[in-house]
């Protein structure tokens, strides 16, 4: 099983941070860039960002933990996001979320023991007119039915 992401590397991280440290107010920009490469924001990156931006570690840690997007540890091989907002609720999203949880054997927000699938809630993909919707890795899927969901879950497990 090969990962889509690079393993943590301090030198690589330092390069990324140095390349973006000129961006005005760029803390989120740097966190996004690190997560793009490593798949999450490894703990040792926090003091590196703080030092490059002349901020305290607490400030950077505070930003990192405030936003739902930033991961503290690597996600599974595939990430399946199910929209849990009102438009998708109105179109049967609750039952689909329950079905995904039971077929993967995990609750929303968790990763399967084999590290293959992370199942996450998302609050609106803007696909509200083709609800319910989901996103598997970077692929968006609308008009989700039990059948289409099962196919997505199977694909994620492969």
């Amino acid at each position, binding site marked *: 099983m090969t990962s889509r992401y690079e393993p943590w590397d301090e030198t690589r991280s330092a390069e990324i941070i140095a390349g973006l440290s000129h961006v005005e107010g760029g803390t989120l*920009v740097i966190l996004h860039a690190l997560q793009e490469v490593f798949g999450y924001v490894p703990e040792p990156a926090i003091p590196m960002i703080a030092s490059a931006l002349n901020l305290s570690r607490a*400030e950077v840690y505070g930003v990192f933990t405030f936003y739902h*997007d930033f991961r503290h540890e690597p996600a599974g091989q595939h990430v399946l996001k199910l929209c849990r907002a009102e438009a998708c609720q109105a179109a049967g999203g609750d039952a689909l979320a329950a079905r995904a949880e039971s077929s993967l054997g995990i609750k929303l927000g968790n990763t399967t023991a084999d590290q293959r699938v992370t199942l996450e809630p998302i*609050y609106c993909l803007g696909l509200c007119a083709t609800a319910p919707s989901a996103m598997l890795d970077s692929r968006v899927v609308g*008009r989700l039915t039990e059948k289409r969901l099962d196919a997505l879950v199977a694909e994620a497990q492969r």
Partner: protein
Amino acid sequence: MKIFVPRDAGAVAVGADDVADAFVRAAEARKLELEIVRNGSRGLYWLEPMIEMATPQGRVAFGPVAEDDVDAVLDAMIADAAHPLRLGVTEEIPWLKRQTRLSFARCGVIDPRSLDEYRAYDGYKGLARALTLTPAQIIADVTTSGLRGRGGAGFPTGIKWKTVADTAADRKFIVCNADEGDSGTFADRMLFEGDPFVVIEGMTIAGIAVGATKGYIYIRSEYPHAIAATNIAIAAAERAGFLGANICGSAHSFDLEVRVGAGAYVCGEETALLESLEGRRGIVRAKPPLPAHKGLFGKPTVINNVLSFAAIPFILNDGAKAYAEFGMGRSRGTMPIQLAGNIKNGGLFEVAFGITLGELVDEVGGGTLSGRPVRAVQVGGPLGAYFPRELFDTPFDYEAFAKRDGLIGHGGIVVFDDSVDMAKQARFAMEFCAVESCGKCTPCRIGSTRGVETIDKIRRGERVAENTAVLEDLCHTLKFGSLCALGGFTSYPVMSALKHFPDDFAPTPARLQAAE
């Protein structure tokens, strides 16, 4: 032959990419020279993927086209023959014809990556006129148009711009709030994916009007397609001299940068968004000072919604009066309304203010997708009120909704059928507020958590009358004691559910059993 296959995320989510690939294969098999334009969406989502063919009589639409339909559809296109999915001339489709498309005039029509097409459809004419005016004249036009911020608060745009123009500073900023987090809304996403230049042009005009040389577009991370489309458009505008130094040979300079959010709903609140842009936690600022005086990096800042900026080019090019002639009361112009949830004909419908909620849900939307009766509609996102059928005569207008304890917000309408449990929806609103609260003010942070607990008590049948009074009191405190709209508006879904659907809060035998 030339066809149009949307690249809009909503169309892609229902198979547009696969359909485009299938057309390529089908054309190769027929040795047919086929040009495929990846346009935005026209917003008729129940017909997506909606494919159009260019003909001398205008574009002809087919939809919804599945991958398996492609061979037959292509044959029908070649022969100009009948086909079950053929919808006729696109512009004549009643759902589209009934609209007044000002901001969305080009969305779904042009290739969003082509600056030339944008210009061929009146693009950048608003900027050209703005460059002949003084900043004060531009602002006067925006004021005359009656445009109010389309993000939800409905504050007059002209007044906001004038405040920034009148504030002296070494640097000023234009910020586009594209953190479209409300469920049921997707107009911003559609516009960036279908016609990004209109927002870029609107922001450039704003920069000239107030003397700002730098703009930021803050897009939520949940919209990767919109982010990509916007970055491509910015690069094209820069290459052509519509952004950067000395725009179109004038003395004005304006740079644009896209910044990506990180999954925090509260960043849609303008001051939290500014904090986030500055690289901090998205914690709401107390007002005053207003962003117009002290905004991004402490400098005077125009912060407007995507739809507000998108209305600007029309106002400058076609005239403030032409814009103001649409609408009712103090709500002038058009509103891109988004129909979503359990609805038959979901999509984007741009129309002048004044159309009633009932017309939108029943006539335009065609009722529910499930075929069951409509029980409630939530207007204005997760913090908007739930309206029952009895309020369907409410006209779409800021004041008319406010009078009935509701709000228009960003123009999203989410339809629910009779299987909805309104107490559950009220609980969800409180829970959402608790999770998304930035934590700065107590009413929002604590009140929402207490709200969840109190609704649970009511549903379990614990001292129902007293706990209902507590819930109402909590809503009152949230509404009047919160620093921003996240806490302030959470009372709308909760109170409206309680008021219009009281039966749903009564404990049922099943629920009582589950609680034991």
